[in-house]
Protein backbone atom coordinates (compact mmCIF):
# COMPACT_ATOMS: atom_id res chain seq x y z
CA UNK A 1 0.00 0.00 0.00
CA UNK A 2 1.01 3.56 -0.57
CA UNK A 3 0.23 7.03 0.71
CA UNK A 4 0.48 9.95 -1.72
CA UNK A 5 0.49 13.50 -0.38
CA UNK A 6 -0.20 16.39 -2.77
CA UNK A 7 -0.26 19.86 -1.35
CA UNK A 8 0.19 23.51 -1.99
CA UNK A 9 2.92 25.25 -0.04
CA UNK A 10 5.09 28.34 -0.24
CA UNK A 11 7.66 28.04 -3.02
CA UNK A 12 10.45 27.84 -0.43
CA UNK A 13 9.00 24.72 1.17
CA UNK A 14 11.83 22.24 1.69
CA UNK A 15 11.67 18.49 2.13
CA UNK A 16 13.95 16.89 4.71
CA UNK A 17 14.12 13.58 2.89
CA UNK A 18 16.32 11.33 0.80
CA UNK A 19 14.78 9.06 -1.89
CA UNK A 20 14.56 5.50 -0.60
CA UNK A 21 14.95 6.40 3.05
CA UNK A 22 12.85 4.65 5.66
CA UNK A 23 10.54 6.87 7.63
CA UNK A 24 8.23 6.46 10.58
CA UNK A 25 4.94 8.08 11.32
CA UNK A 26 5.53 11.40 13.10
CA UNK A 27 8.95 12.16 11.64
CA UNK A 28 9.30 15.44 9.77
CA UNK A 29 8.76 15.44 6.00
CA UNK A 30 9.63 19.06 5.50
CA UNK A 31 8.84 22.61 6.49
Amino acid sequence: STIVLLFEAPAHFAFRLRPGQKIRFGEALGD
Partner: protein
Amino acid sequence: AHSVASRGVLRWRPLHFLLATGGGYATYRGYRSHKEKQLEEQGIEVPPRIAHPWEVWLYRSLPTRLVSRAWGRLSRVELPVWLRGPVLGLYAWAFGVDLREAAEEDLRHYASLSHFFARRLKPHARPLHAAHPRLRLRLRLPLVSPSDGRILSFGRVRNCEVEQVKGVTYSLEDFLGPLPHTHLPPRAPPPHHHTPSGPASSSCSSSSSSGPAPSASDSASFQQRLVSGEGRDLFHCVIYLAPGDYHGFHSPTDWRVALRRHFPGSLMSVSPGVVRWVRSLFCHNERVLLCGCWEHGFFSLTAVGAQNVGSIRIYFDQELQTNRPGDRAGSFRDVCFGSEGGEVPGGVGRGPGGVALRRGEPLGEFNLG
Protein backbone atom coordinates in the same frame (compact mmCIF):
# COMPACT_ATOMS: atom_id res chain seq x y z
CA ALA B 1 2.14 -31.91 -37.84
CA HIS B 2 0.13 -34.93 -36.85
CA SER B 3 2.43 -37.26 -38.69
CA VAL B 4 5.52 -35.60 -37.18
CA ALA B 5 4.01 -35.87 -33.72
CA SER B 6 3.23 -39.50 -34.29
CA ARG B 7 6.89 -40.19 -35.09
CA GLY B 8 7.81 -38.67 -31.75
CA VAL B 9 10.41 -36.34 -33.25
CA LEU B 10 8.66 -33.10 -32.37
CA ARG B 11 5.71 -33.58 -30.05
CA TRP B 12 3.72 -30.71 -28.67
CA ARG B 13 4.55 -30.72 -25.00
CA PRO B 14 3.07 -27.69 -23.14
CA LEU B 15 5.27 -28.21 -20.09
CA HIS B 16 8.45 -28.23 -22.18
CA PHE B 17 7.27 -25.15 -24.05
CA LEU B 18 6.55 -23.32 -20.80
CA LEU B 19 9.89 -24.31 -19.32
CA ALA B 20 11.75 -23.21 -22.43
CA THR B 21 10.01 -19.83 -22.75
CA GLY B 22 10.05 -19.19 -19.00
CA GLY B 23 13.70 -20.13 -18.76
CA GLY B 24 14.53 -17.97 -21.75
CA TYR B 25 12.72 -15.00 -20.26
CA ALA B 26 14.38 -15.46 -16.86
CA THR B 27 17.79 -15.63 -18.57
CA TYR B 28 17.01 -12.48 -20.53
CA ARG B 29 15.94 -10.64 -17.33
CA GLY B 30 19.08 -11.82 -15.56
CA TYR B 31 21.24 -10.58 -18.42
CA ARG B 32 19.50 -7.17 -18.44
CA SER B 33 19.86 -6.84 -14.69
CA HIS B 34 23.57 -7.72 -14.92
CA LYS B 35 24.11 -5.14 -17.68
CA GLU B 36 22.25 -2.46 -15.71
CA LYS B 37 24.37 -3.14 -12.63
CA GLN B 38 27.51 -2.81 -14.72
CA LEU B 39 26.33 0.54 -16.12
CA GLU B 40 25.40 1.80 -12.64
CA GLU B 41 28.86 0.84 -11.36
CA GLN B 42 30.33 2.96 -14.16
CA GLY B 43 28.16 5.89 -13.01
CA ILE B 44 25.84 5.77 -16.00
CA GLU B 45 22.22 6.40 -15.12
CA VAL B 46 19.97 3.64 -16.45
CA PRO B 47 16.46 4.77 -17.39
CA PRO B 48 13.76 2.59 -15.82
CA ARG B 49 12.24 0.00 -18.14
CA ILE B 50 8.59 0.94 -18.52
CA ALA B 51 6.00 -1.73 -19.19
CA HIS B 52 4.42 -1.75 -22.64
CA PRO B 53 0.71 -0.94 -22.71
CA TRP B 54 -0.07 -4.58 -23.54
CA GLU B 55 1.91 -5.72 -20.50
CA VAL B 56 -0.10 -3.33 -18.30
CA TRP B 57 -3.31 -4.50 -19.96
CA LEU B 58 -2.34 -8.11 -19.30
CA TYR B 59 -1.52 -7.36 -15.67
CA ARG B 60 -4.75 -5.41 -15.18
CA SER B 61 -6.78 -8.20 -16.74
CA LEU B 62 -5.68 -10.60 -14.00
CA PRO B 63 -8.40 -11.04 -11.35
CA THR B 64 -6.39 -9.21 -8.70
CA ARG B 65 -9.47 -7.90 -6.89
CA LEU B 66 -10.96 -11.37 -6.64
CA VAL B 67 -7.67 -12.83 -5.40
CA SER B 68 -7.35 -9.97 -2.92
CA ARG B 69 -10.80 -10.59 -1.49
CA ALA B 70 -10.12 -14.35 -1.28
CA TRP B 71 -6.87 -13.58 0.52
CA GLY B 72 -8.73 -11.26 2.86
CA ARG B 73 -11.20 -13.99 3.77
CA LEU B 74 -8.39 -16.48 4.33
CA SER B 75 -6.47 -14.03 6.50
CA ARG B 76 -9.52 -13.53 8.71
CA VAL B 77 -9.80 -17.24 9.55
CA GLU B 78 -9.35 -17.60 13.30
CA LEU B 79 -6.20 -19.53 14.12
CA PRO B 80 -6.07 -21.98 17.02
CA VAL B 81 -4.05 -20.52 19.87
CA TRP B 82 -1.26 -23.09 19.53
CA LEU B 83 -0.80 -22.15 15.83
CA ARG B 84 -0.73 -18.37 16.29
CA GLY B 85 2.86 -18.23 17.53
CA PRO B 86 4.39 -20.18 14.62
CA VAL B 87 2.25 -18.65 11.84
CA LEU B 88 2.33 -15.03 12.95
CA GLY B 89 5.94 -15.40 14.12
CA LEU B 90 6.89 -16.58 10.63
CA TYR B 91 5.14 -13.56 9.09
CA ALA B 92 6.84 -11.21 11.57
CA TRP B 93 10.23 -12.76 10.83
CA ALA B 94 9.74 -12.74 7.05
CA PHE B 95 8.70 -9.09 6.89
CA GLY B 96 10.80 -7.68 9.71
CA VAL B 97 8.02 -6.74 12.11
CA ASP B 98 9.36 -5.18 15.31
CA LEU B 99 7.10 -6.75 17.91
CA ARG B 100 8.56 -4.65 20.73
CA GLU B 101 6.71 -1.58 19.48
CA ALA B 102 3.35 -3.36 19.05
CA ALA B 103 0.76 -2.51 21.66
CA GLU B 104 0.32 -6.24 22.23
CA GLU B 105 3.58 -8.20 21.96
CA ASP B 106 2.11 -11.63 22.67
CA LEU B 107 1.28 -13.23 19.32
CA ARG B 108 -1.35 -15.46 20.93
CA HIS B 109 -3.43 -12.34 21.46
CA TYR B 110 -4.00 -12.02 17.68
CA ALA B 111 -6.81 -14.28 16.50
CA SER B 112 -5.90 -14.14 12.80
CA LEU B 113 -3.34 -12.83 10.36
CA SER B 114 -5.68 -9.97 9.53
CA HIS B 115 -5.91 -9.04 13.21
CA PHE B 116 -2.12 -9.08 13.47
CA PHE B 117 -1.75 -7.00 10.31
CA ALA B 118 -3.99 -4.30 11.82
CA ARG B 119 -2.01 -4.25 15.10
CA ARG B 120 -1.69 -1.00 17.04
CA LEU B 121 1.48 0.61 18.30
CA LYS B 122 2.41 1.38 21.87
CA PRO B 123 1.18 4.88 22.81
CA HIS B 124 4.60 6.56 22.70
CA ALA B 125 6.24 4.47 19.98
CA ARG B 126 5.99 7.31 17.46
CA PRO B 127 6.59 10.73 18.98
CA LEU B 128 5.52 13.62 16.76
CA HIS B 129 8.35 15.74 15.49
CA ALA B 130 8.23 19.23 16.93
CA ALA B 131 10.20 22.39 16.31
CA HIS B 132 12.86 23.29 18.88
CA PRO B 133 11.08 24.63 21.99
CA ARG B 134 12.79 28.02 21.71
CA LEU B 135 11.85 28.36 18.06
CA ARG B 136 8.36 26.96 18.31
CA LEU B 137 6.76 30.36 18.68
CA ARG B 138 8.50 31.71 15.61
CA LEU B 139 8.41 28.66 13.32
CA ARG B 140 5.47 26.74 12.00
CA LEU B 141 5.42 23.08 12.95
CA PRO B 142 6.75 20.87 10.17
CA LEU B 143 4.68 18.53 8.06
CA VAL B 144 5.08 15.01 9.46
CA SER B 145 4.96 11.60 7.86
CA PRO B 146 1.44 10.13 7.97
CA SER B 147 2.71 6.55 8.17
CA ASP B 148 5.67 4.23 8.50
CA GLY B 149 7.24 3.30 5.20
CA ARG B 150 9.83 4.12 2.58
CA ILE B 151 10.04 7.36 0.63
CA LEU B 152 9.68 6.55 -3.07
CA SER B 153 9.51 10.05 -4.43
CA PHE B 154 9.03 13.68 -3.44
CA GLY B 155 9.37 17.13 -4.91
CA ARG B 156 7.57 19.74 -6.96
CA VAL B 157 4.77 18.94 -9.40
CA ARG B 158 5.73 20.21 -12.85
CA ASN B 159 3.50 20.51 -15.93
CA CYS B 160 0.73 18.60 -14.21
CA GLU B 161 2.93 15.48 -14.07
CA VAL B 162 3.81 13.81 -10.78
CA GLU B 163 6.73 11.42 -10.31
CA GLN B 164 5.85 8.04 -8.82
CA VAL B 165 9.58 7.24 -8.88
CA LYS B 166 12.41 9.04 -10.62
CA GLY B 167 11.71 9.13 -14.36
CA VAL B 168 8.23 7.54 -14.16
CA THR B 169 5.33 9.95 -14.00
CA TYR B 170 1.57 10.05 -13.91
CA SER B 171 -0.98 12.71 -14.72
CA LEU B 172 -2.19 14.83 -11.82
CA GLU B 173 -5.62 15.15 -13.38
CA ASP B 174 -5.99 11.39 -13.93
CA PHE B 175 -4.96 10.81 -10.34
CA LEU B 176 -7.27 13.34 -8.68
CA GLY B 177 -10.10 13.34 -11.19
CA PRO B 178 -12.01 16.49 -12.04
CA LEU B 179 -12.28 18.78 -9.06
CA PRO B 180 -15.21 21.18 -9.12
CA HIS B 181 -14.55 24.71 -7.87
CA THR B 182 -16.75 24.09 -4.87
CA HIS B 183 -14.29 21.46 -3.61
CA LEU B 184 -11.21 23.57 -4.07
CA PRO B 185 -10.34 25.38 -0.89
CA PRO B 186 -10.75 29.13 -0.79
CA ARG B 187 -8.00 31.08 0.93
CA ALA B 188 -8.96 29.84 4.36
CA PRO B 189 -7.47 30.47 7.79
CA PRO B 190 -5.91 27.51 9.64
CA PRO B 191 -8.53 25.02 10.78
CA HIS B 192 -10.17 25.37 14.17
CA HIS B 193 -10.91 22.18 16.01
CA HIS B 194 -13.57 23.19 18.45
CA THR B 195 -16.48 23.17 16.08
CA PRO B 196 -19.94 23.50 17.50
CA SER B 197 -21.89 20.29 17.75
CA GLY B 198 -25.01 19.90 15.70
CA PRO B 199 -26.51 17.66 13.06
CA ALA B 200 -24.26 15.32 11.14
CA SER B 201 -22.66 16.81 8.08
CA SER B 202 -24.47 16.34 4.84
CA SER B 203 -22.91 14.30 2.12
CA CYS B 204 -23.17 14.66 -1.60
CA SER B 205 -22.68 11.47 -3.53
CA SER B 206 -22.07 11.25 -7.21
CA SER B 207 -20.51 8.90 -9.67
CA SER B 208 -18.71 9.77 -12.82
CA SER B 209 -16.62 8.13 -15.49
CA SER B 210 -13.29 9.35 -16.72
CA GLY B 211 -13.64 11.69 -19.63
CA PRO B 212 -11.39 12.25 -22.63
CA ALA B 213 -7.72 12.99 -22.09
CA PRO B 214 -7.14 16.66 -21.28
CA SER B 215 -5.10 18.85 -23.59
CA ALA B 216 -1.78 20.38 -22.49
CA SER B 217 -3.37 23.75 -21.76
CA ASP B 218 -6.16 22.06 -19.79
CA SER B 219 -3.53 20.23 -17.76
CA ALA B 220 -1.66 23.43 -17.01
CA SER B 221 -4.83 25.14 -15.92
CA PHE B 222 -5.75 22.16 -13.77
CA GLN B 223 -2.53 22.57 -11.80
CA GLN B 224 -3.00 26.33 -11.66
CA ARG B 225 -6.46 25.85 -10.20
CA LEU B 226 -4.96 23.97 -7.28
CA VAL B 227 -2.44 26.70 -6.51
CA SER B 228 -3.82 29.82 -4.93
CA GLY B 229 -1.41 32.44 -6.16
CA GLU B 230 2.06 33.94 -6.43
CA GLY B 231 4.88 32.47 -4.39
CA ARG B 232 3.19 29.11 -4.00
CA ASP B 233 3.77 25.75 -5.60
CA LEU B 234 2.39 22.24 -5.66
CA PHE B 235 4.43 19.50 -3.97
CA HIS B 236 4.09 15.76 -3.65
CA CYS B 237 5.46 12.90 -1.56
CA VAL B 238 4.98 9.14 -2.03
CA ILE B 239 5.40 6.73 0.89
CA TYR B 240 5.44 2.96 0.32
CA LEU B 241 4.26 0.75 3.18
CA ALA B 242 5.93 -2.69 3.14
CA PRO B 243 4.01 -5.76 4.36
CA GLY B 244 5.69 -5.68 7.78
CA ASP B 245 5.05 -1.99 8.45
CA TYR B 246 2.42 -0.58 10.75
CA HIS B 247 -0.50 0.01 8.37
CA GLY B 248 -2.37 2.79 10.13
CA PHE B 249 -2.08 6.32 8.78
CA HIS B 250 -2.45 9.63 10.54
CA SER B 251 -3.02 13.24 9.71
CA PRO B 252 0.29 14.82 8.62
CA THR B 253 -0.79 18.34 9.58
CA ASP B 254 -3.71 20.41 10.83
CA TRP B 255 -6.20 20.54 7.97
CA ARG B 256 -9.81 20.20 6.94
CA VAL B 257 -11.13 17.46 4.65
CA ALA B 258 -13.79 18.80 2.31
CA LEU B 259 -14.11 15.87 -0.06
CA ARG B 260 -13.64 12.10 -0.01
CA ARG B 261 -13.40 10.46 -3.40
CA HIS B 262 -13.26 6.67 -3.82
CA PHE B 263 -11.83 5.31 -7.07
CA PRO B 264 -12.49 1.58 -7.52
CA GLY B 265 -9.71 0.08 -9.61
CA SER B 266 -7.16 -2.64 -10.10
CA LEU B 267 -5.14 -4.01 -7.24
CA MET B 268 -1.69 -4.32 -8.73
CA SER B 269 1.34 -4.57 -6.50
CA VAL B 270 2.79 -1.22 -5.45
CA SER B 271 6.21 -2.59 -4.50
CA PRO B 272 9.03 -0.29 -5.67
CA GLY B 273 9.90 -2.63 -8.56
CA VAL B 274 6.37 -2.52 -9.97
CA VAL B 275 6.09 1.24 -9.35
CA ARG B 276 9.22 1.64 -11.52
CA TRP B 277 7.74 -0.65 -14.17
CA VAL B 278 4.07 0.41 -14.57
CA ARG B 279 3.51 4.02 -15.56
CA SER B 280 0.45 5.65 -13.93
CA LEU B 281 0.16 2.75 -11.51
CA PHE B 282 -1.44 4.98 -8.89
CA CYS B 283 -4.10 6.05 -11.40
CA HIS B 284 -5.06 2.43 -12.09
CA ASN B 285 -5.24 1.11 -8.53
CA GLU B 286 -8.11 1.33 -6.09
CA ARG B 287 -7.65 4.46 -3.96
CA VAL B 288 -9.31 6.86 -1.60
CA LEU B 289 -8.57 10.55 -2.01
CA LEU B 290 -9.16 13.00 0.82
CA CYS B 291 -8.79 16.62 -0.16
CA GLY B 292 -9.33 19.92 1.53
CA CYS B 293 -7.20 22.76 2.78
CA TRP B 294 -4.47 23.58 5.25
CA GLU B 295 -2.91 26.85 6.20
CA HIS B 296 -1.11 27.15 2.84
CA GLY B 297 -4.03 26.18 0.60
CA PHE B 298 -4.82 22.90 -1.15
CA PHE B 299 -3.98 19.69 0.70
CA SER B 300 -4.71 16.07 -0.18
CA LEU B 301 -3.86 12.63 1.12
CA THR B 302 -4.52 9.55 -1.01
CA ALA B 303 -4.43 5.99 0.28
CA VAL B 304 -3.63 3.68 -2.65
CA GLY B 305 -4.56 0.03 -2.27
CA ALA B 306 -2.36 -2.86 -3.35
CA GLN B 307 -2.52 -6.51 -4.32
CA ASN B 308 -3.07 -7.95 -0.86
CA VAL B 309 -4.17 -4.76 0.81
CA GLY B 310 -7.28 -3.66 -1.04
CA SER B 311 -9.32 -2.50 1.94
CA ILE B 312 -8.99 1.11 3.01
CA ARG B 313 -10.75 2.42 6.08
CA ILE B 314 -11.22 6.07 7.00
CA TYR B 315 -12.24 6.42 10.64
CA PHE B 316 -14.54 9.41 10.23
CA ASP B 317 -16.26 8.00 7.15
CA GLN B 318 -18.30 4.94 8.04
CA GLU B 319 -19.96 4.83 4.61
CA LEU B 320 -16.75 4.10 2.77
CA GLN B 321 -16.45 0.53 1.47
CA THR B 322 -13.56 -0.45 -0.76
CA ASN B 323 -12.72 -3.53 -2.85
CA ARG B 324 -16.36 -4.51 -3.33
CA PRO B 325 -17.33 -6.97 -6.10
CA GLY B 326 -19.80 -4.68 -7.91
CA ASP B 327 -17.58 -1.61 -8.22
CA ARG B 328 -16.68 -0.53 -11.73
CA ALA B 329 -13.10 0.52 -12.48
CA GLY B 330 -12.86 3.95 -14.10
CA SER B 331 -15.66 5.48 -12.04
CA PHE B 332 -15.50 7.29 -8.71
CA ARG B 333 -17.81 8.11 -5.88
CA ASP B 334 -17.74 11.37 -3.94
CA VAL B 335 -18.78 12.32 -0.45
CA CYS B 336 -18.34 15.95 0.48
CA PHE B 337 -18.30 17.21 4.01
CA GLY B 338 -18.93 20.43 5.71
CA SER B 339 -22.12 22.07 4.62
CA GLU B 340 -23.46 21.78 8.15
CA GLY B 341 -21.83 21.65 11.56
CA GLY B 342 -21.43 18.39 13.43
CA GLU B 343 -19.30 16.31 15.72
CA VAL B 344 -18.02 12.84 15.15
CA PRO B 345 -17.04 10.52 18.00
CA GLY B 346 -13.32 10.38 18.60
CA GLY B 347 -12.71 14.10 18.64
CA VAL B 348 -12.79 14.67 14.90
CA GLY B 349 -14.84 17.77 14.31
CA ARG B 350 -17.00 18.38 11.27
CA GLY B 351 -17.68 21.98 10.65
CA PRO B 352 -18.65 24.33 7.87
CA GLY B 353 -15.22 23.92 6.25
CA GLY B 354 -15.16 20.11 6.43
CA VAL B 355 -13.74 17.54 8.81
CA ALA B 356 -11.03 19.12 10.96
CA LEU B 357 -8.03 16.91 11.65
CA ARG B 358 -5.18 17.57 14.03
CA ARG B 359 -1.58 16.83 13.22
CA GLY B 360 -0.84 13.20 14.16
CA GLU B 361 -4.46 12.28 14.72
CA PRO B 362 -5.40 8.72 13.60
CA LEU B 363 -7.03 8.99 10.19
CA GLY B 364 -7.43 5.50 8.78
CA GLU B 365 -5.86 2.13 8.05
CA PHE B 366 -5.19 -0.43 5.36
CA ASN B 367 -6.51 -3.94 5.79
CA LEU B 368 -5.86 -7.26 4.08
CA GLY B 369 -8.36 -8.21 1.41
